[in-house]
């Protein structure tokens, strides 16, 4: 399934990359594909596209109309209903078909020699421009039927008209770049998928690094791969914050927090794995418990064999308690260097830890005080009490 998906992703990525590359190459950094100037043979006063000739939507087009001798010229795009009505009775060159980049079909339409009003006085042009010797417009084609009109202004005509057109996509270059990068990313991703690397499991962020560590019976940490870690059961997950310099930040435990049974060290006589996330800002670590079906690695096997020899099913854990009362797990060899104080038998089972039993409240302590003739109090024992007369009995009053 994963392989199939990866190939689909490769295909999509390739398509995206090719499309992006094509956009970049065709449009160039300005996001436009230009053509012209092209001469238009007319001596009339209007060149207009027929309705339905412009059929594209969301295409950025720039039109530059140039006429010689500084003649005034107007370029505008408007809804075909408006444009058709405006030039309907005017003699004009009508563009009846057009193929990009420049392949127009035209026909001459007879009519009046003038326009019904100055094009610059109309308010329905979607975009328009007028100038002497040339005029240009730039617009994104809307989702309605529009017509382009190039009109002469005043008494002049459009003889010598030259038209340049640029087609483009708004932000086309960067969209192409984006598609190219997206495609490349998709292809890379698909390769990772085919290599079987677990790329989906960790959604915490790209800047998180997972380090899997196996701790053998001697307390020695061994770094293992993610695949090897999958063979083990997670015993503990630790989050370790690492600062910019890569040093692990001290985690200050919240004194109000309840003791976390899962995070507490477990006195199980089994091999353990620990994993740590080593990240710039935060990391998450996991401790794994070996699944029964797995073969232990050499060190763990030796330790397990030694422990098995010492006691059938029981394994011994030697703890060294330092002067601060902190327990350190030590090997059997190291244990010989220390004085044996106590032996604790710990029953290990797979059942979850029992909730801690409530600590019984300390028994009420009775203090007997003898007051001498100088009013000085002397604490006396219960046995000595028989020698004295009880004068007063005070209870603890909060």
């Amino acid at each position, binding site marked *: 399934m994963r392989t199939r998906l990866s190939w689909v992703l490769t295909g999509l990525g390739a398509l995206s990359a090719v499309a992006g590359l094509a956009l970049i190459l065709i449009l160039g950094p300005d996001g436009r594909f230009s053509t012209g100037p092209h001469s238009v043979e007319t001596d009339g006063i209007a060149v207009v596209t027929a309705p339905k000739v412009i059929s594209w939507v969301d295409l950025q087009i720039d039109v530059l109309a140039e006429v010689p001798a500084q003649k005034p010229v107007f370029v505008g795009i408007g809804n075909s*209903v408006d444009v058709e009505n*405006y030039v309907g009775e005017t003699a004009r060159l009508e563009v009846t078909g057009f193929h990009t980049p420049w392949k127009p079909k035209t026909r001459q339409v007879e009519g009046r020699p003038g326009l019904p009003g100055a094009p610059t006085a109309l*308010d329905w042009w979607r975009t328009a421009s007028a100038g002497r010797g040339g005029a240009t417009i730039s617009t994104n084609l809307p989702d309605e*039927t529009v017509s382009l009109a190039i009109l002469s202004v005043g008494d002049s005509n459009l003889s010598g008209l030259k038209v340049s057109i640029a087609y483009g996509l708004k932000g086309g270059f960067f969209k192409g770049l984006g598609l190219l990068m997206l495609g490349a990313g998709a292809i890379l991703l698909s390769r990772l998928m085919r290599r079987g690397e677990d*790329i989906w499991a960790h959604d915490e962020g790209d800047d998180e690094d997972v380090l899997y560590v196996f701790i053998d019976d001697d307390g020695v940490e061994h770094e293992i791969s993610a695949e090897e870690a999958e063979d083990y059961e997670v015993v503990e997950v630790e989050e370790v914050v690492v600062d910019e310099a890569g040093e692990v930040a001290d985690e200050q435990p919240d004194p109000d927090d309840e003791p976390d049974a899962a995070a507490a060290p477990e006195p199980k006589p089994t091999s353990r794995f620990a994993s740590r996330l080593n990240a710039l800002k935060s990391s998450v670590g996991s401790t794994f418990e070996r699944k029964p079906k797995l073969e232990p690695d050499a060190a763990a096997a030796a330790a397990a064999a030694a422990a098995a020899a010492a006691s059938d099913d029981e394994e011994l854990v030697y703890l060294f308690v330092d002067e601060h009362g902190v327990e350190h797990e030590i090997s059997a060899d190291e244990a010989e260097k220390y004085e044996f104080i106590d032996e604790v038998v710990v029953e290990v089972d797979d059942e979850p830890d029992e909730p801690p039993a409530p600590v019984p409240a300390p028994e009420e302590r009775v203090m007997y005080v003898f007051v001498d003739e100088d009013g000085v109090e002397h604490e006396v024992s219960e046995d000595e009490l028989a020698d004295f007369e009880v004068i007063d009995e005070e209870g603890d009053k909060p």
Partner: protein
Amino acid sequence: MKRLVAATCCLLVLSGCSRPHERSDLSVGKDAARTSEVNRVFERYRLVRNAAIKLLDPRPLSTVESDAVLDIDSGSFEVSQRLAQKQKQDTSAIDVTKVVTPHFSKYPLWFLAVVRDRAKGVNRIQIFERAQAADPWLLVASPETVAEIDLPELRSSGSKVTPVSPDNGKGMAMSAQAAATAYATTLGDANAPEADTVVNDSFIRQMRAAAEASTGLTGVKFAQRWTAEDVRFVLRTADGGALAFVTLLRYDTYEVKAGLTVSWPEGTPQQAFLSTGISDSGTLQYKHQVLLHLPGGNDKPRAIGQYGGVVGAVNE
């Protein structure tokens, strides 16, 4: 897997956004006006109208009004000039409560707007028309309804309302044009067969009362004639009926016996047009814009609003 889906979606969205494509629907058409355009039309209308009111000159009005509205307003300006009266400018905030812009495939374009006049307690149901692409928007109809009356709900497809051909009577007792003709005939002759096809509404009763007052003048032969102009603006209502803007022409003709004179009270429009009265024969011309509601089914049409006045006079 989630990321794969997300990445694919991003790819599709990115490539789909603003992607140039060919339109599948190449039909030619446009909404009569955009909201911004409507606002500009109203601003310009009020500016020009107030300038005309200030000067009591109807000529500037011709750049923002046309047809019966221009005739009626020009008549009122003439009345004010002759009576040396002033008219109030409209300086209150424009309270356009509704704008309806039909979709057209060719000119003329028009749209409907409901404007509330709080001072007079009426709603003006206005039609602005652009006859040609090179023409400006002109107010061509402005019947008034009392503010308490709600317009019949208009049928719309999406945001577009549906214009109806004036000759289309489908789903109604008659077409809008037939209703206009029947209404005019009924106004002119209460006993005409068409009188049974329209509702005897308040406008008809009011016009008949005025006609009877003139008919009762001793030594005066009075005749009233009504005609309906061609109906141009009809919208389909939600009940399957129609809302029609009808312009009616009214001619009040007086033939006075020798030695008598018909005159009108000071300050009335009739007196302004016929200041010396009618001594022989004369005709007063009126124009009334009537908003007719043609209900769906077989119910009779009735007027729900009107606007009118004297537009001219002939004294022979």
